[in-house]
């Protein structure tokens, strides 16, 4: 790569970083807001007592309720359940959608998880938030007011909302992983040059995470790039090389698909 090419690449990254900084200020915490809008819409559409989204978090493994809506929803936010518990745990562990009705009338039913989230429902529908990377969490609806049970159409509709939520989550996670990757790259480079094999390994991880046909992850990546300002020439060269290779690989994949 010539100096002229390198300079224009760095300039492009800077321009992207500036754009991302502005976008970031305009839309802070986009994932949380999108998830909240999904549970708001779910409660309204189903005329339900509550809707919530729990996401999988590690150390320890748990499902943490991140957003909720509806008259009975507020108590859930911030609380966690084990992945081996209750309907949400089952749906998360198996990736299978499920609805139960007449739950509260059976005293033997495991109510601990429900009690912990502040509300014991009569009926509950839960669908997984999944994509090809796996299952990230669960979308739940409690007590549809108009009917005692959930129909096939209800389950299909919930699946559509779940797909939206899963996309939002995947984008945020990919961004986090790329930033972890760049950090790891600088740490690994330390005082010595990275070997070709090390660079290849880093690139293949980055390329896998960036294989999303969507503009959003690009801006989130650019956000991360914005934080790289002030780095030395050597580190910038490395970032440029990684991005160049990722771009080339993405172009090659697009070529194969068409």
């Amino acid at each position, binding site marked *: 790569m010539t100096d002229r090419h390198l300079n224009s690449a760095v300039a492009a990254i800077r321009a992207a970083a500036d754009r991302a900084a502005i976008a970031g200020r305009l839309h802070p915490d986009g994932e949380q807001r999108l998830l909240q809008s999904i549970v708001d819409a779910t409660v309204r559409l189903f005329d339900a007592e509550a809707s919530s989204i729990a996401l999988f978090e590690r150390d320890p*493994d748990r499902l943490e309720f991140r957003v909720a809506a509806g008259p009975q929803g507020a108590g859930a936010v911030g609380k966690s359940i*084990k*992945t*081996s518990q*209750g*309907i949400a*745990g*089952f749906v998360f*562990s*198996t*990736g*299978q*959608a*499920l*609805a*139960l*009705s*007449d*739950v509260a009338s*059976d005293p*033997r*039913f*495991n109510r601990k998880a429900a009690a912990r989230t502040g509300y014991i429902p009569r009926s509950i*529908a839960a*669908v997984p938030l*999944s*994509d*090809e990377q*796996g*299952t990230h969490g669960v979308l739940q609806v409690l007590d549809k007011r108009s009917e005692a*049970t*959930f*129909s*096939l*159409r209800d*389950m*299909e509709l*919930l*699946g*559509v909302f*779940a*797909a939206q939520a899963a996309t939002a989550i995947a984008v945020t996670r990919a961004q986090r992983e790329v930033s972890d990757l760049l950090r790891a790259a600088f740490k690994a480079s330390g005082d010595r040059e990275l070997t070709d094999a090390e660079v290849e390994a880093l690139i293949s991880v980055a390329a896998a995470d960036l294989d999303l046909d969507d503009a959003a992850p690009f801006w989130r990546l650019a956000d991360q790039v914005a934080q790289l300002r002030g780095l030395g020439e050597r580190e910038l060269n490395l970032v440029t090389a990684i991005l160049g290779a990722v771009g080339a690989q993405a172009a090659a994949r697009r070529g194969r698909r068409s």
Partner: protein
Amino acid sequence: MAIDPEDLPAWSEAFLAADRLARTAGISRVDREWAWGGATGKGVRVAIVDSGVEGSHPAVRGRLGESVAVRIDKNGDPEVVKDNGQDLYGHATACAGIILGLAPEAEIVSVRVLNEELKGKGAAFARGLEWAIEQGVQVANLSLSSKSDAMYGLFHELADEAYFHNVALISAANNIAEASYPSLFSSVFSVAAHAEPDPWRFYYNPNPPVEFGAWGVDVPMAWKDGSDVVATGNSFAAPHIAGLVALIISKHPGLTPFELKAILAAVADNPRTSVPAAPSAVRTKKGKKKGR
């Protein structure tokens, strides 16, 4: 009970594709009386690869034979160990109750692949399925799936292994159209839910990957700790087909998954249009009995 197509999600609409079933004219002599009349499921072992069947639940009727669990050892490898006949969630017991409701004398083999631990989840599922095939069960109910692309190859091998050993894999379809294994493989019986409250009513879908539709909405069923619930999901459609397959095998041992699917298609409740005259001269009887 007539079905209103407006009430069906996209993946169920093809259950009403009457015009596409005309091709089954040649096997119209196969009816339900022939398929499973007088059968009880006796002599058929049905594996439930799931959350562990609760052996003491009244709905299990004392029909739980072997009970194993797959756990991940220190090296990260799955190993099969004896299980204690408990159900982590209630789901496996629900499936067992539905199967035994149709085939009361089938023997249930519980393979618990769900654990407190999430690590190695897909590997545990695959090992559990492999173990069931090795044990020579004739039917395996899989009301769970893996979305991991990394597991695709392994599940594909196992689906072939099952097919060539005459093990019918009954797999719940996913609610949303996305890759999930093994329910998308052509050799498995992929099942989605319909809403008509009749455990014997099922449809053949000539527009795969979902091939069969069975009752899966507001189904009364067994759950954990001796309880009962009413639940909805494709998970509960699959065991209805598993129960029917167990009945057919108990009456006609040795049928292949291919033959079983053909028999199910022949006796499904789909609306039929008038069958065009078959070119063959061997059709002798007109009209068919409807038995259960």
